[in-house]
């Protein structure tokens, strides 16, 4: 069955290889452009005088389209070329910080970064187009900030240099605060303040941890590959402390229990495109950092913190699961659900095997797509129904049939129905938990499925079924809202039916990044692998 697509990909890769090295220069420019173009467009919009609205929209559209398409193209090239999960499309530019600090502008994609990079491009396109058509007040400023965010996101997941990795994250983070404060719904000022303080704290702790790590490794280059090379085969002290700093710092940014309270309120308050980009992509920064930096460099620390991480992850999954069930507001519920699903990813890391870490990456990518889709659709529900309070919504199904088709599909994807990408992530994490030192965790983790099915189906029932409440003057979902949603749904579906798109580079990337440090779990004799 899968022969056909693979053969097809082989054909493409043969073409690309025959094109040879002349292509690689192009790819390097593409990497840089994907980051620079949104920023250039933001700058152009900021400094130019009065522009017709169509011009503004066109500029913004280019700023979102180019990174999105480049990420897809680079992804296709990466998949088509015979790599071993190592870095491709590397850029190394000396910006004058190299001699003293070992800091370069160092870009590149490995098997772990690639899925996140494509996620950033895809969700960016969807959120960007939704924002362009959303008709918010002061559209131009909104788009400028969102473009800055998009530029930062493309940078985060293509940075090999740790300083730039952090720098781009801040670049994407700051507009979030501003946009919540200006365009958020009720209570935006307080929420913006809370999020700013909380996330800045997390980022500070992360930075401290990263710098300390750099100092202790004694590497000459402040990059993921440089520090890894410096540590090859040698253990080093203070692993527990360093890992703790990174776990807490990154953990705050991914809403690890009990540092989660900022997330539901922030996502519920933020305008939909911001919630899509933050919950869908930017939040993954924390776990991505743990996977790319903390776990491969500090295996001893990871072991020491494992037991605590287990309980915190279960807190995410079960405590926040119940909190999610108790929510009445659709957007607050989605925000809580997104916190809850991070518990799965942390459990995958806790299992600390190639299956667990690979599945956590799959889970994060799938979650990014599905949560962005859900925030988009919830925003449409809120706009049509006039409220996001589920007790005041009802019976929308017959009046908005297309929305009624999309929303439950997105919800089912998020619950982990087979056929969607989320299923593979969750399944892999469950498989890895059974082989972890504490297999009983599997039973608790599986409760999460039931919990998410309960709140997911309840939300669908409350909003779309039952007696019709309120007026829906604007009717069904519009084409401009439908296409971004369909783009995300199609990606979820494609990965769900053909998970090797993601799992192949991830498997290789994880094996590359964790060379004989992690207790690699290979499947016992038999033909099945995680994704077949």
């Amino acid at each position, binding site marked *: 069955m899968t022969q056909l697509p693979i053969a097809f990909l082989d054909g493409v890769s043969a073409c690309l290889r025959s094109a040879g090295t002349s292509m690689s220069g192009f790819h390097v420019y593409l990497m840089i452009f994907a980051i620079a173009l949104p920023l250039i467009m933001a700058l152009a919009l900021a400094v130019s005088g009065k522009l017709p609205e169509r011009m503004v929209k066109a500029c913004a559209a280019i700023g979102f389209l180019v990174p999105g398409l480049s990420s897809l193209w680079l992804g296709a090239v990466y998949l088509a070329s015979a790599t071993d999960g190592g870095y491709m499309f590397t850029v190394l530019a000396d910006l004058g910080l190299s001699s003293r600090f070992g800091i370069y502008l160092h870009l590149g994609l490995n098997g772990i970064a690639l899925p996140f990079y494509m996620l950033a491009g895809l969700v960016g396109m969807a959120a960007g187009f939704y924002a362009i058509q959303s008709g918010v007040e002061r559209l131009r400023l909104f788009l400028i900030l969102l473009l800055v965010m998009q530029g930062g996101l493309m940078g985060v997941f293509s940075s090999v240099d740790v300083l730039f990795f952090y720098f781009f994250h801040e670049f994407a983070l700051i507009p979030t605060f501003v946009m919540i404060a200006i365009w958020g719904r009720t209570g935006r000022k307080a929420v913006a303040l*809370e999020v700013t*303080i*909380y996330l800045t704290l997390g980022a500070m702790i992360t930075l401290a941890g990263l710098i300390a790590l750099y100092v202790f490794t004694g590497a000459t280059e402040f990059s993921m590959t440089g520090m890894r090379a410096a540590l090859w085969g040698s253990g080093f002290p203070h692993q527990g402390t360093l890992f703790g700093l990174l776990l807490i710092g990154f953990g705050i940014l991914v809403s690890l229990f*009990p540092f*989660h*309270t900022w997330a539901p309120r922030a996502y519920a308050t933020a305008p939909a495109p911001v919630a899509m980009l933050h919950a869908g992509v930017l939040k993954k920064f924390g776990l991505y950092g743990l996977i790319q930096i903390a776990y491969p460099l500090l295996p001893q620390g990871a072991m020491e913190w494992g037991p605590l991480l287990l309980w915190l992850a279960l807190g995410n999954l079960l*405590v*926040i699961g*119940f*909190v999610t*069930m*108790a*929510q009445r507001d659709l957007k607050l519920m989605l925000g809580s659900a997104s916190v809850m699903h991070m518990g799965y990813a942390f459990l995958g890391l806790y299992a600390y095997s190639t299956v667990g870490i690979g599945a956590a990456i799959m889970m994060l990518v799938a979650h990014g797509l599905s949560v962005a889709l859900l925030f988009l659709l919830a925003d449409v529900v809120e706009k049509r129904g006039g409220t996001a309070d589920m007790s005041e919504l009802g019976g929308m199904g017959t009046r908005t049939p297309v929305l009624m088709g999309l929303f439950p599909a997105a919800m089912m994807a998020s619950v982990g129905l087979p056929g969607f990408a989320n299923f593979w992530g969750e*399944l892999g994490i*469950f*498989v890895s938990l*059974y*082989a972890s030192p504490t297999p009983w965790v*599997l*039973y608790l983790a*599986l*409760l999460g*499925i*039931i919990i998410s099915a*309960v709140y997911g189906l309840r939300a669908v029932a409350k909003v779309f079924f039952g007696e019709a409440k309120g007026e829906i003057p604007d009717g069904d979902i519009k084409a401009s809202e439908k296409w971004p949603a369909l783009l995300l749904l199609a990606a979820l579906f494609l990965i769900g039916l053909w998970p090797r798109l993601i799992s192949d580079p991830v498997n290789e990337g994880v094996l590359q990044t964790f060379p004989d440090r992690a207790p690699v779990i290979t*499947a*016992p*004799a*038999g*033909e*099945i692998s995680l994704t077949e």
Partner: protein
Amino acid sequence: MGDFGFLIGIIMVYWTFGTVSLGGLQELAHHSPDSVTTAMGLLLFCGVLGKSAQMPLHVWLPDAMAGPTPISALIHAATMVAAGVYFLGRTFFLFTGEALHIISWVGVVTALCAAIWAFGQRDIKKILAYSTLSQLGYMVAGFGMGSLYGLHHGDGHGAALYYGIGASMFHLTTHAFFKALLFLGSGSVIHACHHEQDIFEMGGLYKKMPLTTLTFAAGVIAIAGVPFIGAAFFSKDAILYVAKMTNFPAFLILTGTALLTALYMGRLFVIAFLGKPNSKSAEHAHESPWTIVLPLVVLAVCSVAGGYAGLYPERLGVLVQNWVPLAHGSDHTLMLVISAVASVVGLGLAGLVYGFGSKTDRVEDKAPPVYAFAKSKFYFDEIYNAYVAKVQDRLADFVSFLDTLFISGLLVKGTAAVAGLFGIGARRVHTGSVAAYVWWFFFGLLLFGAFAGGFLDGILQK
């Protein structure tokens, strides 16, 4: 809920055998029978509990009757609920003897309870739904006991291994015919009676809808297992036979259930089709168009003939002839008599108890406790609803409250408040009064002098 255990079971199988391919598993399980555990089988069976609606996860199936009738026919007759039983058939090698015992009893209890509950229903589709539950119980019990029979009493030839599959899959096949027929027949009736589903609002339909009545009667005969013209006669026989050979109490219960089956199906038939019309919509009923009746006729033929193995295509026929455990010798006669008595007595009793046409349920009139007992459905719905409202939702609200109070309130807001207090304290110092600043100045000077003079050394060195 069912998938909860099912998934654990699958993961367990994966880590035990390293594969989840059915072909590979069969070989591995054959070579190392010790690695098959009871827990594994029971966890996998959880999936069957959910998908084939066995107790205690049966409540969804009657509730799913809200869907359109052709969908009920498809889901309940052949496809979805069959998935669980089919799954058992494909993985029979993963079940130990203990697991098979438990599986048999789950099936037996489901068969009995669902048959009792069917008496408390007035909705034609609900009655059929409970009969589906009951028949699924038969299939699961048939699988369990048939496999046990093959394991322990196998009469020497290789096919004994597959008796469980044969017994359950044969009943699944015949059940698919007559249950699809009954559902589509009920659809025809509901259509004719202007969406009336209460059997006590029907009555006298035999005059208005002769073909539907005739085909429905064929379905009733088939499910009741009337000898030689009812498909379930043959397939239920196989299940009863393995029950008799392995588990005598279960055999008695299943035989009683067979009688109950004939009784409640007879109740449905005599009240809905015989007697006089009990409502306006029944009076105005007329035969459905041929598009509705034709499938009924086809299915009726299959229901009558479906029990004869010779009628199946060659490869399927081999399965039915060799794998279905058949009684022989004196047992053969005994089984025949028992089945015949159960079905005929059941149908006859239905005529006696419920009369030929009635506007009210006579059992409800004469013996209310019996009716209430059947109607209670043993309070499963109430227990589940109470769990959701009283336990699950309250727990969710409570945890959410704690989250708001302790984490969001005490920890996050508390930290902010401590920082704020420092701010207030620092602000209090900046009073703007020169006199106060002079006092602070003197205090600082004093401190400086003390430090310089070495008076503080004792404190600082600690």
